[in-house]
């Protein structure tokens, strides 16, 4: 009853890749086995050489064993190459699957885009219609504006009256204007004649200041 995710599906592609991977595993197993075999044979070779340190080069058994090891090594190398090939193939396949998804996505996108474009087919007509509607709207606005023109005289009268009122108001207000502050200025005063006179004046000013303090 709950939210059960659907079963994981195994597709045909999965099965194909599985076949490939199984052969890869087989090669991997073979490589491991051969590796072990080589290691054990090398150990055997060593012991045989130790047992017969003088004539081991002539010993056919040892020669045979060494040959075998070399052959196994050769096989191991081949197996490694094949393993790499298979691995590459698997990754190529996986990438192709992703590419397939990509192409499918493009297809879908294209479909949707064309569908949406179809919706836009009436756009020209729609725009024309909108334009005519707006021009009609403008006409209506003009008409409405003109109908107000009849009252325009009245507006002018109002303006005139307001102007008159304003004049009156300003006239009334003018006397109440604050008098301009008369700042002391040197204008009209005679030029200073000499510094002595200046200092004398200064002294007298000081005396006045002292008196004021006292």
């Amino acid at each position, binding site marked *: 009853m709950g939210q*059960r*995710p*659907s*079963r*994981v*599906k*195994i597709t045909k592609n*999965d*099965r194909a*890749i*599985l076949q490939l*991977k*199984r052969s*890869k*595993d087989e090669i*991997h*197993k073979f490589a491991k086995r051969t590796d072990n075999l080589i290691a054990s044979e090398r150990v055997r070779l060593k012991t045989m050489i130790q047992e017969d340190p003088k004539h081991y080069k002539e010993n056919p058994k040892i020669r045979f064993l060494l040959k075998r090891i070399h052959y196994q090594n050769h096989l191991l190398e081949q197996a490694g190459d094949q393993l790499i090939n298979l691995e590459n193939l698997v990754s190529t396949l*996986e990438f192709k699957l992703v590419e397939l998804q990509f192409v499918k996505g493009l297809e879908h996108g294209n479909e949707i885009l064309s569908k949406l474009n179809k919706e836009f087919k009436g756009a020209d007509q729609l725009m024309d219609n909108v334009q005519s509607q707006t021009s009609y709207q403008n006409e209506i606005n003009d008409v409405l504006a003109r109908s107000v023109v009849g009252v325009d005289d009245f507006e002018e009268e109002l303006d005139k009256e307001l102007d008159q009122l304003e004049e009156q108001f300003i006239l009334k207000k003018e006397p109440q204007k604050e008098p301009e502050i008369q700042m002391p200025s040197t204008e009209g005063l005679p030029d200073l004649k000499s510094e002595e006179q200046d200092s004398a004046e200064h002294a007298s000013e000081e005396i006045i200041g002292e008196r004021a303090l006292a």
Partner: protein
Amino acid sequence: MPMPLPPIYSFPPLYTRQPNSIIRRQQISSWMDLILQYAKSHNAWCMSAEGSIVTEGSESVQESIFVNNEIERSVPQVFINEIWSTMCQEGKAIGTDKGKKESPTYYILWRTVDSWASLILQWFESAGKLQQVVTIYELSQGDESIGWEFHGMPEPLTADCLKPLCHRHRATIVNDEYGKPVAVKVV
């Protein structure tokens, strides 16, 4: 490196089946701990019913965990079977012969199946193997899982550990033409 077993391993009464059921339960649980620890430190997935480690491919002649030469004690086979059956009941071991009560070898689960399942799921997520078919061999023996605790796990056991993921609808096991599980796809 294999860890040394705890001192209880050298405790002689551990090797005799205790008549008192409460003490016996305690004794069996000690044995279970010993086996799990032994298996984990030796990285042994499979043990014979006699208590020696079984490795794939090679015939092992290792000494049994149930035989302690140091104190010259060994567990009688009847009691060993009792230990195995308790371990199977508690999900700490799985008989390799399915359906039979006593099998010649047992898989040792030092993690529970669910815990293995989540560890495997972690590998799938971190190795970027989601949405891909991965063979069980690749998962348990392949080069890509080296360094993970489940590397080297026997394939049938791996298949068992994947079952919880199938129940959670995270995975599907693909069987080969003989009905043997060979691959898994995780999403």
